């Protein structure tokens, strides 16, 4: 079942991403656009909020360069005003391209890749020890899987039976030097995470139905959802196994011109091009 609301939220996040880049004429637009869908689901459906509005569940952005997507999502959630987000990457702005821990909404310092999953493991251990019931979601990228620490963390997540941890892998086949499959292949990602003890599945990271099925809301268990065709339904998550969801994403998603662009890791464009991109979102 499609979820028009979340699709609309994702479009608004994309609009914010593009407006952020337009401020300085450059930025990690490709990543922000690619992650808009999963971030919309996490922040507007999956992660539970306390009565005061703060989030019970934790989101750990390990891909620091994708901060633009999180900033835009937090803007959509009301934590940042778009006027400030528009200063993205500008001198003196706290809307940094790769912010540090302490920036509102950012749990860790993540610009040096490969370190987020370890901290997410620590948080999952901590939340379990506290008995808070909180879940921890950690977003990594496929290129980041080349860092050995990711696998140290993966090993420890299953060893410590962290059923409250979900790793989300942004499989965009893009990294600084080019196409991930050519730089250093990380596939088969699903089999590798499975071998490390994760309950793993691969989905289209832009398919809202797939996102809804793969990321059941904690407040609304998957058992309470409308029945899905059996073959589409993931197995119920075991209580003591971490989960990994490999998100097949398209860098620049939503802007056809960007989707065709091969060097979308970092975009530097004329003002008119950003305006055209926003228009292309529809």
């Amino acid at each position, binding site marked *: 079942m499609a979820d028009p609301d979340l699709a609309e939220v994702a479009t608004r996040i994309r609009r914010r991403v593009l407006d952020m880049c337009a401020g300085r004429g450059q930025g990690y637009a490709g990543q922000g656009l690619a992650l808009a869908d999963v971030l919309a689901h996490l922040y507007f459906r999956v992660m539970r909020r306390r009565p005061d509005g703060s989030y019970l569940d934790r989101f750990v952005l390990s891909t620091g360069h994708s901060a633009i997507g999180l900033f835009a999502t937090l803007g959509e959630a009301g934590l940042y005003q778009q006027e400030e987000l528009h200063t993205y990457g500008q001198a003196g702005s706290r809307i940094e391209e790769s912010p540090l*821990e302490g920036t509102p909404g950012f749990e860790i310092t993540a610009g040096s890749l490969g370190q987020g999953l370890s901290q997410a493991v620590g948080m999952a251990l901590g939340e379990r020890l506290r008995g808070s019931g909180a879940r921890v979601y950690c977003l990594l990228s496929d290129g980041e899987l080349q860092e050995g620490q990711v696998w140290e963390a993966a090993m420890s997540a299953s060893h410590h039976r962290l059923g409250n941890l979900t790793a989300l892998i942004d499989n965009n086949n893009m990294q600084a030097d080019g196409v991930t499959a050519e730089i250093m292949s990380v596939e088969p990602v699903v089999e590798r995470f499975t071998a490390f003890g994760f309950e793993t599945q691969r989905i289209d990271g832009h398919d809202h139905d797939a996102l809804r099925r793969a990321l059941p809301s904690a407040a609304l268990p998957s058992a309470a959802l409308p029945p899905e065709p059996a073959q589409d339904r993931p197995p119920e998550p075991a209580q003591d196994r971490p989960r990994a969801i490999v998100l097949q994403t398209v860098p620049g998603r939503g802007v056809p011109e960007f989707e065709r662009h091969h060097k979308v890791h970092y975009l530097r464009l004329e003002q008119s091009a950003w305006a055209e991109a926003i228009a292309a979102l529809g």
Partner: protein
Amino acid sequence: MTAQETAALRPEVRDVTAAALVSAPFATAMVEIGHERADVVVVSADLSKYTDVAPFARAFPDRFFQVGMAEQNMMGIAGGLAKTGFTPVAVTYAVFATRRAGEQVQMALATGSRTAVVAAFLPGLTTPFRATHQATDDLAIMRAVPGMTVIDPMDATELAGAIRAAVSAGGPVYLRAQRGDVPELIVPPADFEIGRCILLRDGGDAGLIGTGLGSQWALEAAELLAGRGTQAAVLHVPTLKPLDAEAIAGFAARFPAVTTVENHSVIGALGSAVCEAVAGTGLPCRVIRRGVPDRWAPAGPLDYLRRSLGLDAGSLAETVTESTGGR
């Protein structure tokens, strides 16, 4: 304020040649802290038996996390635990903490403001192995990390006090630690105050400044010098950061030369810190640095290594004598 007052505390210090040995002071302190503080957790990378945290693990199995041989992951996990309200103590050897996991210590533990402690064992030359295990560069690395508190305790009393201070530091702490039987020179109880220097011994003929085991070595040299009629003062600087530059400058002002002694490379730790504290004050005081020279140290027991590197009491006393013009 006189220099002696600036150098502040003068605890009761035992004769360095007759120090009592205390068994596993870190282990004892951690178990005590564990009983007092439910927020304190320990993360270990397959060295719990060799870093004196096995007793904590037995006493508080829920608050002890074994991560296997994976120090980078350990520091990240410690960071995650800190962010969920716990006070992590990540325990491993100093070489692994600062070399292999140096970036994780900085990014996961030191870019925020939460308390997190790295307890680093086998400091300096306290290992029979060579470059793989001798941490002769750790203090230099950690001293350059913004906001990092860096402590090199000199004995069992100070180690026990320092870990207590560290878990309440209000920020990241790098603490060197010794395992097994550790000499007790400072008579307990002695509160450890981060940043405070200690005047271990006073004398007007020569000045020695030490940190960690280096302060023990400085005391040994001072004892030797006393037998020859030279009264040497020994200032102990357990906290390399934040540095009590005022106390060091006050001490240096009393002497034409001071000799620094440390269980670390002569580059980047105590010797450098004293130079930095003295430079710019206009003091006519030379700083003679003694520590591990700028080369990989040999292998062997500590007394052999000290002799090889000019850090035994006799060599240090000779250095001090030369610095005073042969008095």
